[in-house]
């Protein structure tokens, strides 16, 4: 009876903690430990060590209260920019250090970003909405908290821009569509809420293609900051361009066939598509139920690791979200890769590259090898057969999601989104079944490959940013190397690995096993620390007349 009472008391405590933060149920602990008897032992240990420690396992803000990032170099070999670097281009970790040292205030950073947005937005159109007053007020609050020694963690006071297909309570969320033009959500998307709870400041909502599959026909298109006449990717182009151009510190995006990684590659920054199920899609204006993902877009791999830790985890409001604990990814980052085996596909991913992309990626492979990684060739024979599989399944699922709205408001959709989504209604059941079969076959092939390797490295795209006119007249396949991992749910990241002869960024894609983002971040971080590509800035010199 006494044992039961103790158990019940601790159960209530844990469940209360869970309600305040994230999932941490007795059932989950039993799942993880194998039995309820072990749960009891665990709870007894908790009584000694303190429930606060247990709570901190789940809540990123609390977790980081006890971790001073200034100690990280000795743990992870992180290299930081000098504090004299332009505030607008500092990674999150560097800003956090300056905040903690009280050398810079969040107010100063937000003001600087707003000034730069004022100067460059007319050309770049990275944002649909900018939250000037709310961002400044949030920065003042963060400043007071930081001065009072109540830092929530490394994201506290850091500005972030969310893609305009993620709900933001009280802030218009249009998905760049006339059908949502006045839509003001009453609650945040889960990913948005979690980043806010970790202390991030909402700077604004970034430009996107309509419903992540159409045009940028209402608010204008987002040019590439490295060359304003070039394409910047879809559909998270606003987020990618804003981070690359120093118009925001970090951003979120959504990725259904490569919409985080392709713009990250074209704009020269980090874009992460997490494992399907890692980040809740609650509050994301959906495109494809089985392939949509929400992820971070940043200047460094460590920044993305920090954000994904805060965004991830089980969410009762998304039936596809996974119950696994989210690792503290930043703790596994090291400058060396001994013991890591990297697969280099023989099929598809290294075919048809421009000479500059091929040169940069081959050099990246040599760098990874020099860092201690073991590179092995792998066969993925279906990899070149997935363009139509992905196209069909996205359209098919998009129609299912949009059917009611499309029936009511088809003329209010832009032409491209209307046709792409409506097309999903006209595929035969035989075509859909065949596509699903090919998808399953590909997933099996990839799983077999991952029995031999820890990560796979490919170019993100076979080309660099092309002229905007090309996108309008004859768009190339911008999901060429990325849709593969939306079809299977594997985590994948794009990072800069060089520049072509025109000074345009080249992207390297790192893929890992499902729910092993830690391996993905480890490979990408070691590569980043050994190179300087992520430190380059677009040659924006001033407003264009």
């Amino acid at each position, binding site marked *: 009876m006494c044992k039961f009472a103790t158990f019940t008391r601790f159960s209530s405590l844990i469940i209360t903690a869970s309600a305040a933060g994230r999932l941490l149920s007795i059932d989950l602990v039993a799942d993880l430990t194998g039995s309820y008897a072990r749960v009891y032992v665990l709870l007894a240990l908790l009584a000694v060590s303190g429930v606060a420690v247990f709570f901190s396992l789940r809540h990123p803000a609390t977790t980081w209260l006890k971790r001073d990032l200034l100690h990280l170099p000795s743990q992870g070999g992180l290299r930081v920019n000098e504090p004299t670097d332009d505030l607008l281009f500092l990674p999150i970790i560097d800003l956090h250090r300056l905040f903690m040292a009280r050398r810079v205030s969040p107010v100063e950073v937000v003001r600087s970003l707003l000034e730069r947005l004022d100067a460059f937005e007319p050309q770049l159109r990275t944002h649909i909405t900018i939250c000037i007053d709310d961002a400044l007020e949030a920065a003042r609050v963060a400043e007071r908290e930081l001065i009072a020694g109540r830092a929530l963690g490394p994201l506290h006071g850091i500005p972030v821009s969310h893609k305009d297909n993620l709900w933001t309570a009280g802030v218009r969320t249009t998905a760049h569509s006339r059908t949502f033009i006045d839509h003001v959500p009453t609650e945040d998307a889960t990913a948005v809420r979690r980043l806010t709870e970790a202390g991030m400041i909402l700077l604004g909502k970034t430009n996107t293609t309509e419903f992540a599959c159409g045009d940028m026909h209402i608010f204008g298109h987002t040019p590439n900051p490295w060359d304003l006449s070039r394409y910047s990717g879809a559909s998270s182009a606003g987020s990618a361009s804003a981070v690359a151009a120093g118009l925001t510190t970090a951003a979120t995006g959504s990725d259904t066939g490569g919409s985080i990684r392709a713009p990250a590659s074209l704009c020269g920054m980090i874009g992460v598509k997490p494992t399907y199920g890692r980040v809740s899609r609650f509050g994301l204006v959906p495109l494809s139920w089985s392939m949509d993902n929400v992820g971070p877009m940043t200047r460094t791999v460590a920044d993305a690791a920090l954000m994904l830790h805060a965004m991830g985890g089980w969410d009762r409001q998304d039936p596809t979200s996974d119950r696994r604990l989210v690792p503290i990814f930043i703790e596994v980052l090291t400058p060396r890769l001994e013991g890591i085996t990297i697969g280099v596909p023989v099929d598809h991913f290294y075919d048809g590259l421009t000479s500059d992309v091929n040169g940069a990626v081959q050099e990246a492979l040599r760098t990874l090898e020099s860092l201690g990684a073991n590179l092995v060739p792998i066969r993925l024979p279906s990899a070149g057969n997935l*363009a139509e*599989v992905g196209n069909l399944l996205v359209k098919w699922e998009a129609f299912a999601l949009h059917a009611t709205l499309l029936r009511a408001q088809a003329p209010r959709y832009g032409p491209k989104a209307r*046709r792409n989504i*409506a097309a999903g209604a006209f595929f035969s059941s035989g075509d859909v079944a065949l596509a699903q079969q090919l998808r399953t076959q590909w997933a099996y092939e990839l799983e077999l490959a991952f029995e031999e390797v820890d990560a796979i490295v490919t170019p993100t795209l076979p080309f660099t940013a092309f002229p905007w006119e090309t996108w309008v007249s004859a768009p190339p396949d911008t999901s060429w190397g990325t849709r593969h991992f939306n079809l299977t749910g594997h985590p994948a990241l794009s990072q800069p690995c060089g520049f072509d002869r025109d000074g345009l960024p080249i992207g390297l894609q790192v893929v890992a096993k499902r729910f092993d983002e830690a391996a993905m971040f480890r490979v990408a971080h070691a590569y980043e620390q050994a190179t300087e590509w992520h430190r380059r800035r677009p040659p924006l010199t001033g407003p264009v007349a």
Partner: protein
Amino acid sequence: MDLSYLRAEAKRLELELDDHDLSIILALVHRTSTRLLVLRPDDSMTLEPALRFGVPEPEREG
């Protein structure tokens, strides 16, 4: 599948799509279906081997 079929289907589905929309959709669906067909998995994953032996005549009753 042709434009008139798509018109009828769009009407049945209560989708307000004009002929320009439908002709683009028709080309897109046709291209996707055609390319998918050539990607069919090998014989071991299909009924093709059975077809090599011929389709038996249906048994006649009486």
